[in-house]
């Protein structure tokens, strides 16, 4: 069976786009072939800086013929119907149709439409130009006087089709003046002459001879192996870097690994800075000394050339540039340390964090306050947390971080260490950014935790306050990541924090920044505001009692009301993120809902404890049966409440408890309620569940022995109230209505 070879030869394709382009080409072409009835055995795409190629093998030589019968109207049908049939079948007259008989319907017309299959090359010649014109490059361009768009100017196209052993034919087509052929070109410098190619194997072999390795994975292997070998031969170890490897494999057609060196004195610069410098600017690999684990004063560059001097000039040139880059880096590192972190702080006043959220200085001030507030709850010394919060962002203004933003945090740690700040503070400078993603480590040192939480919570509250919440796939400020960070820090460290009042108080602060309201007066009293106050009435009472005053009553109305709304909304965002997080760890999200539905659930750690205990309970026989009993009770209640148009809520009237089973249930409920309440208060959810389990038997017995809808309305009412009491008893644990399954 014949194979297809396509090669699109262009000017240098950006490295970062190559892999996706290869996949895209393969998918577009094979989909189009299959859509036209051309099934294939296999396909493989290739990409180098200058060419995008695809081989499809095992294609049929032509499409299968298609024969389609179209049923028409019966013989003698009205003229209109016949004319419509002729038109739709593409027939000139009824002579071209045949007549078929059906025992029931009688005689009717049939048109046979024959669609002969086309030769595959013809189909390909139709497909490819359209794919080229519509190719989904992330960014494309025009050139010269043409209107074709490609990632960079497209120069020539190879398109051949043929079976093994045969001389393949050129699939002829043209795209904006570029005519397909069987001619390609080798390496830009090493073998630029035109080459005539046949099929995949021939194309690969000839290009290989012309110093082009067309397979990206092979180029990566060559680079990695040669780099490791060269390192080893010099007693060193390659610092592997997958991202860099991907990129350099997209910058060369013929990789040649060469080693260069730089002066030892540059090793005073932190390893990470050296690596960032050499990687970002020069796209070279760094090497480690296996004995010390530190970087060696060597680097590996991947050139695209077998140079006539063995690469001496190339190495010398790269060494010169790296020397200049490292001098810059060293200069930055030295000046940063001379000037010190403290000296940079005032500049934060003139740097906007976000147009609506004030300056970086204001943000740092908020983080500082929050870190101090959180510190005692996470076992950190408030004074250390305060210092850490002050310095945590200072490295943003250093030269090194200006040059390499990815080193933020880490540089803060280095500079803090250099200035002999307390080790907790230095660690927090780096760790407060963590966790950066689901796979990243969570900080465990108390001071780092305090600043990390303060930083993330301030970000969340801030963007909530200006209504910049994440929507769909848009989350430009990485707020989901921030919320997940808070969740993981709390859960993995077993922290006990009531979130709601923290969120509310932060929202009050942020709103004051946004509305540019007088700050100090209110701020200082915010932490005196009792945590659970949610209503304006509540805040008024607190004001009177605590002599706590907002700057004005107008402020109280707008700011407090909005802050409560933000806190509520953010808390439910946390609930959502928690659900996602727990689900990823195999938990049932309905149980998160069931627990969150209770009033005032804002202690994430406790919430998860409660949920875990509940999940375990629901696995047991007691749990399952109780849930069934609960549902039965609620169903009956719902129906009867609807009938009567009223709600039945406890307590029951003891005098009306006639049957022993209902008496026992009422007793059990009373006891269980009390025991659950005590256990929950002691945060002992296992015991709470054991208590709840004791409801199972009386509930079952009740349904066995008692008819709820007694003819006596007083008895019926009392029994319905008893059912509601079952609901009430479970409420101490969770909202059982929300439990699914």
């Amino acid at each position, binding site marked *: 069976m014949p194979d297809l070879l396509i090669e699109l030869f262009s000017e240098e394709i950006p490295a970062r786009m190559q892999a996706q382009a290869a996949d895209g080409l393969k998918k577009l072409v094979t989909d189009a072939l299959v859509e036209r009835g051309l099934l294939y055995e296999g396909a493989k795409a290739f990409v180098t800086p200058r060419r995008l190629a695809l081989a499809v093998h095992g294609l049929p030589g032509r499409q299968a013929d298609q024969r389609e019968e179209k049923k028409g109207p019966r013989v003698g049908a009205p003229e209109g119907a016949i004319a419509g049939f002729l038109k739709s079948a593409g027939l000139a007259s009824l002579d071209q149709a045949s007549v078929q008989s059906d025992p029931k319907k009688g005689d009717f017309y049939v048109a046979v439409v024959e669609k002969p299959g086309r030769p595959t090359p013809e189909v390909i010649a139709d497909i490819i130009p359209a794919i080229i014109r519509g190719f989904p490059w992330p960014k494309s361009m025009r*050139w010269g006087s043409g209107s074709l768009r490609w990632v960079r100017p497209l120069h020539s196209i190879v398109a051949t089709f043929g079976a093994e052993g045969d001389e393949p034919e050129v699939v002829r087509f043209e795209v904006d003046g570029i005519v397909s052929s069987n001619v390609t070109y080798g390496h830009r410098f090493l073998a630029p002459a035109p080459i005539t190619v046949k099929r995949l194997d021939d194309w690969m072999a000839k290009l290989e001879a012309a110093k082009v390795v067309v397979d990206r994975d092979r180029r990566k292997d060559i680079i990695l192996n040669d780099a490791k070998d060269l390192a080893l031969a010099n007693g060193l170890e390659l610092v592997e870097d997958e991202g860099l490897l991907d990129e350099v494999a997209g910058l060369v057609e013929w990789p040649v690994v060469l080693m260069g060196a730089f002066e030892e004195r540059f090793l005073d610069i932190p390893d990470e800075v050296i690596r960032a410098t050499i990687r970002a600017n020069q796209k070279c690999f760094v090497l480690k000394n296996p004995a010390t684990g530190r970087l060696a004063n060597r680097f590996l560059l991947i050139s695209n050339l077998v140079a006539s001097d063995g690469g001496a000039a190339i190495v010398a040139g790269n060494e010169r540039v790296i020397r200049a880059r490292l001098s810059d880096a060293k200069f930055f590192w030295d000046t940063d340390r001379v000037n010190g972190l403290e000296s940079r702080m005032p500049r934060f006043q003139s740097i906007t964090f976000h147009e609506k959220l004030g300056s970086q200085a204001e943000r740092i001030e908020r983080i500082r306050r929050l870190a101090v507030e959180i510190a005692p709850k996470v076992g950190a010394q408030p004074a250390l947390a305060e210092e850490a919060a002050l310095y945590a962002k200072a490295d943003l203004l250093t030269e090194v971080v200006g040059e390499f933003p990815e080193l933020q945090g880490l540089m803060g740690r280095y500079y803090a260490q250099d200035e002999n700040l307390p080790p907790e503070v230095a660690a927090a400078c780096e760790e407060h950014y963590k966790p950066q993603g689901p796979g990243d480590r969570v900080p465990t040192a108390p001071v780092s935790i305090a600043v990390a939480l303060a930083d993330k919570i301030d970000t969340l509250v801030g963007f909530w306050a200006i209504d910049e919440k994440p929507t769909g796939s848009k989350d430009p400020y990485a707020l989901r990541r921030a919320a997940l960070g808070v969740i993981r820090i709390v859960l993995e460290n077993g922290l006990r924090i009531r979130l709601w009042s923290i969120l509310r108080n932060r929202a009050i602060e942020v709103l004051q920044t946004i509305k540019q309201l007088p700050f100090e007066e209110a701020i200082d009293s915010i932490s005196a505001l009792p945590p659970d106050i949610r209503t304006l009435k509540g805040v008024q009472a607190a004001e009177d009692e605590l002599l706590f005053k907002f700057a004005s009553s107008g402020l109280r109305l707008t700011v407090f009301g909005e802050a409560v709304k933000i806190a509520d909304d953010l808390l439910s965002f946390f609930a959502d993120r928690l659900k996602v997080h727990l689900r990823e760890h195999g938990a049932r999200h309905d149980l998160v809902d069931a627990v969150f539905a209770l009033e005032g659930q804002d202690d994430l750690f406790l919430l998860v404890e409660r949920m875990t205990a509940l999940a375990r309970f629901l696995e047991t026989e007691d749990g399952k049966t109780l849930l069934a009993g609960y549902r039965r009770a609620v169903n009956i209640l719902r129906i009867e409440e609807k009938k009567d148009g009223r709600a039945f809520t406890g307590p029951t009237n003891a005098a009306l408890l006639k049957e022993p089973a209902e008496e026992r249930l009422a007793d059990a409920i009373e006891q269980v309620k009390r025991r659950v309440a005590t256990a929950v208060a002691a945060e002992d959810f296992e015991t709470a569940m054991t208590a709840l389990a004791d409801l199972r038997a009386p509930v079952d017995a009740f349904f066995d022995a008692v008819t709820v809808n007694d003819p006596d309305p007083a008895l019926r009412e009392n029994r319905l109230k008893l059912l509601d009491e079952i609901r009430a008893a479970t409420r101490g644990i969770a909202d059982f209505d929300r439990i699914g399954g």
Partner: protein
Amino acid sequence: MIDPALPAHMRPDRSFQALLLTLQRFWADQGCVVLQPYDMEVGAGTFHPATTLRALGPKPWKAAYVQPSRRPKDGRYGENPNRLQHYYQFQVILKPSPDNLQELYLKSLQAIGVDLGLHDVRFVEDDWESPTLGAWGLGWECWCDGMEVSQFTYFQQVAGIECAPVSGELTYGLERLAMYVQGVENVYDLNFNGREGAEKISYGDVFLQAEQEYSRHNFEAADTEMLLEQFRMAEKACHKYLAFGDKGERHEMALPAYDQCIKASHVFNLLDARGVISVTERQSYILRVRELAKACGAAWLKTAAGGAA
């Protein structure tokens, strides 16, 4: 290959000025109009009307010129080996971009002494954008053994207007190329005139003092009040000239108006270097210059050279 018949002082690997002359010669041979620098302070050769304005409209155009480029923020008081607040760009613009533009560029490197069998020349993605000019294009930075020596761009948009045909723009960083072919580590050590001994003039002899003085000026002394006023004046004048030259279908003062846009842009760069523009203001200044550039581009299209009938 360097022309072996050249006297030593005219070899591009011996003197800075010979490098420049060689490039001029090379591009003259390709049919370019060899222009002289624009007589205003600009941040890059792109600002020269021979690029910005000529890239607009349907008329073919080929030009090459050296352009002194001022980057106030790049001042290093003469202490950085390859970063200058005033340096020379060699600018080539070919419209429409020819199919063999990359080959021409590589040949020009050979002409100044870069042996392509010995050096690793690479085209590394670098999309060019000038927010102040409302311009962008796709292309590469050209590396020679890891050193960025040129910028290579296919203009897609200039002054907010789609380019059709597309111009190809080459910008050579002359000092960096010269360091490369002369094999020196520090820009100030470049041989400027190709002479040796007492007759030799180095790049430092010509420019070191200027770099020191202008760094002081750019970062410490430039009169910000005056500059703020100059920005406003240039902006106002630009609008005024645009209105004056506007004759409906035709425009009669696109070039003088564009001069004021250039002026505003440079003044903005100076203010920026002085650190008196906050992050938020910065954006709005850029937008103001872009508005001028766009209006000048639109006016240019209504002139004869801009292709108006």
